[in-house]
């Protein structure tokens, strides 16, 4: 019995290894092409490794960073993601606490409104939202987080209220009897207990904001500010359908590398957080 298992285990491991390699291959393909000269990346030579004639070293990366403004885009994307996630985590958890602790028609109406917003697809509001944001001047990377807070509130409030229903009231009551006002109670007692849910919400919202293409395209002033997905979509197209492939591949690599690093560092939390979000959502 035991011996039979080891043989089948080896076969299964081999198959899984092949699968894993095919999963990694597309990224590897981007990597090898990012070192080739533009002219050497024709559609039929994508699979070839760079040779002496086509190898250009880091030229594509330098070009993407300098001429295409990758660095600016990176800063915009980073700022938008961090500010939006912070705003969502703090404001929505406070709102969720209020909704669960203060019972009444208004609270439950708000709750269902948030849940409803989670389901509605973005295309429903994209035109009117971008016009509203323009009118209120929420169209720079520095204040677009207000829009993300509004549109991301649904999922966050939903996940926070789900968790808050399970934590015992007594701890908060004790704190309030000891003389804490609701703000102190919230920040000193409730918020520390929320940490696991906070991590899940932060990861889910960060993945969404960082990769979001449509909302920033419609809301931001495209000529002035481009987030990374916008840069990849718009910046490498020359005239007559020509694409600057080398620089684009380098740019994709520069986008993927930070994601992979963050993922490998926080793998446990990320996988757990995403799974928790899926089960609740």
């Amino acid at each position: 019995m035991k011996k039979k298992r080891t043989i089948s285990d080896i076969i299964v491991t081999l198959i899984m290894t092949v699968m894993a390699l095919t999963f990694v291959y597309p990224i590897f393909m981007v990597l090898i092409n990012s070192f080739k000269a533009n002219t050497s990346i024709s559609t039929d030579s994508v699979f070839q490794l760079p040779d002496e004639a086509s190898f250009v070293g880091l030229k594509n990366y330098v070009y993407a960073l300098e001429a295409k403004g990758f660095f600016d885009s990176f800063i915009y994307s980073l700022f938008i993601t961090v500010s939006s996630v912070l705003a969502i985590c703090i404001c929505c958890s406070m709102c969720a606490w209020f909704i669960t602790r203060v019972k009444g028609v208004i609270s439950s109406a708000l709750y269902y409104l948030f849940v409803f917003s989670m389901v509605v697809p973005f295309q429903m509001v994209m035109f009117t939202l971008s016009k509203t944001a323009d009118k209120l001047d929420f169209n720079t990377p520095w204040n677009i987080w207000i829009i993300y807070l509004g549109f991301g509130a649904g999922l966050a409030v939903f996940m926070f209220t789900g968790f808050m229903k399970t934590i015992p009231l007594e701890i908060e009551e004790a704190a309030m009897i000891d003389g804490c006002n609701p703000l102190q109670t919230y920040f000193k007692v409730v918020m520390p207990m929320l940490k696991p849910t906070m991590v899940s919400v932060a990861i889910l919202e960060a993945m969404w904001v960082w990769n979001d293409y449509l909302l920033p395209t419609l809301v931001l002033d495209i000529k002035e500010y481009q987030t990374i997905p916008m840069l990849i979509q718009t910046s490498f197209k020359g005239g007559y359908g020509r694409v600057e492939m080398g620089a684009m591949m380098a740019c994709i690599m520069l986008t993927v590398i930070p994601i992979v690093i963050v993922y490998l560092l926080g793998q446990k939390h990320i996988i757990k957080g995403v799974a928790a979000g899926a089960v609740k959502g």
Partner: protein
Amino acid sequence: MQEKVIKRYWPIFVIPTLGAFAIGFIWPFIQGVYLSFCSFTTIEKNKWVGLDNYIRALGLDKDFKDPSPLTDSLWFTVAFAIVSIVLINVIAFIFALVLTRGLKGTNIFRTIFFMPNLIGGVVLGYIWKVLINCVLLLVGEPLLALNSTAGFWGLIILMVWQQVGYMMIIYIAGLQSIPESLIEAAQIDGATSMQTLFKIKLPMVMSSITICVFLTLTNSFKLFDQNMALTNGDPANSTTMLALNIYKTFYDRIGASWKGLGQAKAVLFSILVIGISLIQLKATRSKEVQQ
């Protein structure tokens, strides 16, 4: 007692989120519903046209020609959803079964399979566009821009690659929650591994299956970034899915009639997605009662 004290603090606790929510969702949503009954180019310049936009969106206006009818996109999306639901869930479940066997390197496999999930749709779309075009050229088929069959299967491959890891994680969690004693008891009673799979493991993870099926279903219906980056609807709007159809109706055409039509399509699309979510809610609720 506490409730009253907390209630007095409502401006601090509720206003920030509610204010942003009003700007980011409630107000645009109300305007959106209203504008779907109008002909407009900006929000202010609108003219009430009643149900005209809806009649056109559903293809009932014989005198009106829409280059990408909503119904075409609906069928394409439905076909895409069916194929991707089956493929993603079957592959993810097999991966989950293998990775719960205690093999060496399980963690590495899990890490690799999950990774594509974190990469954004636009980036994924371009990576696969390059790859698929190269394969098509080598086998002598027309490229993606002229080949709707390749566009369909390209989208499927892309979405399988992206989502298998995610669903696999949910299935692994489901499989690990099956009590060990249950499987051991079955083995002692002489059940083969196939029997344990179909008679014990599958029924025990039914709730995970429901979650994953609906996740893949809503993901397929809401798909936008990948669709835009990989095929952008080419050739001739034959690979345009619902979300991209609405976007193109809004922004790729010039004239007063298109934005109203786009908004009406968006309302219909929302009703469809909300409907799916309600069915999902019902399905998961009834599962909970059984357990």
